[in-house]
């Protein structure tokens, strides 16, 4: 079963459990994958029908099924894209003249369909790395290799979309802006409006099509940037702090969107995103780079370069408890305790690798240790933040 068939099965399950919201989004993704005007029209008609028949569950199911089957028939014949390397860096460094801060050396490789998360505290080089990758800053050392064809630097930058944390203001109506992008990118006149309708529906922006930029919340501004990005069909999307200013639900939705966009079986793209939301990013990303003072730290990987710090495979647990550190230390001493740190409201405890998470849970139960929550961060870059 290829990637598309797997995703298709997943969609059938969404239908089975009446999860229409996500199903609609995924149907739009598949429609865009067809790159076929007829499908654009059919799906647009379907979306209009949905607006008028929101409560007709049975009718909806039938329609969904029909649209899905139709898309399946077209896409099952379409070749699945090979996941090629998009960009790789070798000893990438960036320094700012007299400033003491310097980024790198960075070694990384990004393939189509992959999401690379950049995490680290503020001022540690995440934005610098993104700006280097999108061509906005030049590397003072090492190289960045883009593994696709382009004519010149400008042409390269048309294929890389960088969305900074503070985006530029859009003037005029949102819909016109998107139409301008689409026609600039060579979309045929007859597909221009249809494709934009699909994309704004995909990102839940239909109500805001004629809004002005200033009347939008930062979450919706981000979505419009994503809509524009989708029209630009970039090779790589580089996005700085996309989750900042978003509520928890919106964060999950945006990350889910990224995943769906990156992992399209037919038009996969590479995404590099920076964020402070460790756990969310880790959940979504295929690889994570932690930056501390501009230096790269890769998680639980064999040491690929001398810059990387070897990490012991300890069991590291983050938890919150009302017990004091001495009480906890005494109790955890019964296992192979390595360290116990109090870190601003939460505790981080490390055990030797022989200890498992089940041993920890057994201890919690047997000793009746009050715990609000705990999280196994042995495989999380969270460790870098506390170490």
């Amino acid at each position: 079963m290829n990637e598309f068939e797997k995703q298709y099965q997943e969609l059938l399950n969404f239908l089975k459990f009446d999860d229409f919201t996500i199903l609609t989004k995924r149907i739009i993704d598949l429609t865009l994958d067809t790159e076929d005007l007829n499908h654009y029209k059919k799906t647009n008609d379907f979306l209009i029908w949905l607006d008028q028949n929101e409560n007709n569950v049975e009718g909806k199911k039938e329609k969904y099924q029909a649209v899905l089957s139709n898309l399946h028939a077209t896409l099952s014949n379409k070749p699945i894209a090979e996941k090629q390397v998009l960009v790789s860096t070798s000893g990438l460094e960036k320094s700012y003249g007299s400033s003491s801060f310097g980024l790198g050396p960075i070694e990384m490789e990004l393939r189509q369909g992959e999401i690379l998360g950049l995490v680290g505290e503020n001022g540690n080089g995440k934005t610098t790395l993104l700006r280097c990758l999108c061509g906005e800053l030049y590397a003072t050392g090492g190289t960045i290799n883009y593994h696709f064809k382009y004519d010149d630097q400008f042409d390269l930058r048309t294929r890389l979309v960088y969305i900074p944390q503070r985006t530029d203001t859009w003037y005029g109506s949102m819909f016109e802006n998107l139409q301008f992008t689409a026609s600039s990118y060579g979309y045929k006149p007859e597909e221009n409006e249809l494709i934009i309708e699909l994309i704004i529906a995909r990102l839940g922006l239909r109500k805001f099509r004629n809004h002005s930029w200033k009347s939008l919340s930062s979450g919706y501004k981000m979505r419009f940037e994503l809509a524009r990005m989708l029209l630009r069909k970039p090779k790589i999307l580089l996005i700085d702090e996309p989750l900042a200013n978003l509520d928890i639900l919106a964060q999950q939705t945006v990350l889910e969107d990224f995943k769906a966009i990156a992992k399209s079986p037919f038009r996969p793209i590479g995404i590099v995103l920076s964020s402070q939301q460790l756990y969310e990013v880790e959940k979504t990303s295929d690889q994570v780079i932690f930056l501390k003072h501009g230096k790269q730290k890769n998680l639980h990987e064999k040491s690929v370069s001398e810059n990387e710090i070897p990490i012991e495979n300890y069991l590291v647990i983050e938890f919150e408890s009302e017990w004091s550190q001495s009480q906890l230390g005494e109790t955890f001493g019964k296992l192979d305790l390595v360290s116990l740190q109090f870190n601003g409201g939460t505790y981080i405890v490390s055990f030797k690798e022989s200890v498992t998470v089940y041993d920890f849970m057994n201890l919690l139960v047997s000793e009746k240790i009050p715990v609000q929550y705990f999280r196994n961060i042995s495989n999380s870059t969270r460790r870098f933040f506390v170490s």
Partner: protein
Amino acid sequence: MFKNIQKYLLINHPLLWNLKIVPVSAFLILFNIIFILLGYLNGAIDFTETDNDYSRNDNDDIIIFFSVMISILTAIVWLVYYLKNNALKSYYPKNNFSLFKEWLLILVVCFLNSSLIMAYLYGKDLKVRSYYTESEAKKRCEILSQGSFFVSGSYSYHYNNDNYEGDAMIEAANYDVDTATAVVDSVKIKDHFFYRGRKYSNFSLLDKNINSYSFFGYNEDSLRKMKIKDWLFYNKKDSVKSLFKNYLAIVKEHKLKANIDEDKWTELVYDYPKFEKYKNIGAEEFEVSYDYENEIRRNQIDTSEQYVKKVKDTYYLYNKYYVPENSLKHSYETISNSWTKPSVSIDTILLLLYIAIGFSLVLFSFRVTSGRNFLIAIVALGVVNILIGILTAIISSEYFYLSALLLLTIILFVYFILVINRRKGKGISGITLNATLWLLPSFGPIVYAIVLELAKSTTNYYEIIDIGLRNEKFPFISFLKDYAYELLWFNVLFIFIMMLFFSRKIKQWRGIAEN
């Protein structure tokens, strides 16, 4: 309609949509037409007006003021819409000619926006030309020019004319060698001249000058004058009378006032063969107001020709006999100029083109760089200009200022090319690119001025005063001077070619990393 056109352009031609080229061009074309119409309506000639009439009511100042206001407002509104989107800054795909196309379209808008005054003046010319065809106007100017011979005006005053000696010699030599010698010998006391061997007093009517119109050159005027003199010399009274008839017909047509008819006019001025006893025919009825007490004693008024009239406390001098020559001269000069020196000619279009190129380059440079770079460039170029000016004053060399500007342009250009090829970062090229583009139109003229000055100073050009000899000895300098306008057109071509080059390079430059 514009909404639909814009909608079509948005999905078919994004650049044209972004430029709002259709609405702004339509608006400007409409206003150009309105200004042509205004010019046409305002261009009617008041045939009673004279050169001395300062209370003209032609609304020119107000219309020019409004044309400037409309241009400024149009530019502001257009820029507000145009600058809303910028595909280059957003890194949307562009082909190699896209920026050139954009600049050309900006140039069209700037041209149309700068041409309102020209449209107004063109409308005025159109109206003035609409009175008569060119040949009819020319015919009338010829009649008026001939008629002016018999109206009060200037004399040749041969005794004052240094250049006349040769002519007098030749004229006299043809008829009477002794007289000719006498003329040469008695230069200082000469109070007469010879025409076709006949002696005339310097105050003879034959010594009168004629009024000229821009239709005619010096030769045509001389021949016309000679023709009238011949009428008098050969006593062709009927020809003179016929001229007066034609002249007065024009007067009548324009409902102007003349208090003599052709018979009276002939009677007053025709005094064959000497033409010394004739009456001055005033060029207008009312001559001048003046302080009677002081003036009357100094200027003995010939009461057979003029009279003084006191109105309230002011004395006025009136002509006893007059035709409206001053009014006709003024009006027909306007008509003549509308054909020979129209307000809108190839030269004025060139001027307008340079103005439009200037505006378009300023706007284009702002568009492709950034507001910050643009402002720094204004300040930097201003400071550099002042420094070069100070150095020029210190060094006091004619070449220094121009050479420094030329050198600056070349250095900025080379720096831009280096930045593109180095691909390390834009450096300060955003600022210098603005300055380079602004200096581009002046490159050709500066080279021209330096080459001309060099060609003059490296030869003994200044030592030779005779113009004819200069042209003969220095054909290259003559060429530069004679073809200055053509070279300015050539410079326009140069600007276009350079912009084609720049447009491609600017696209590459835009892709280079910032600092």
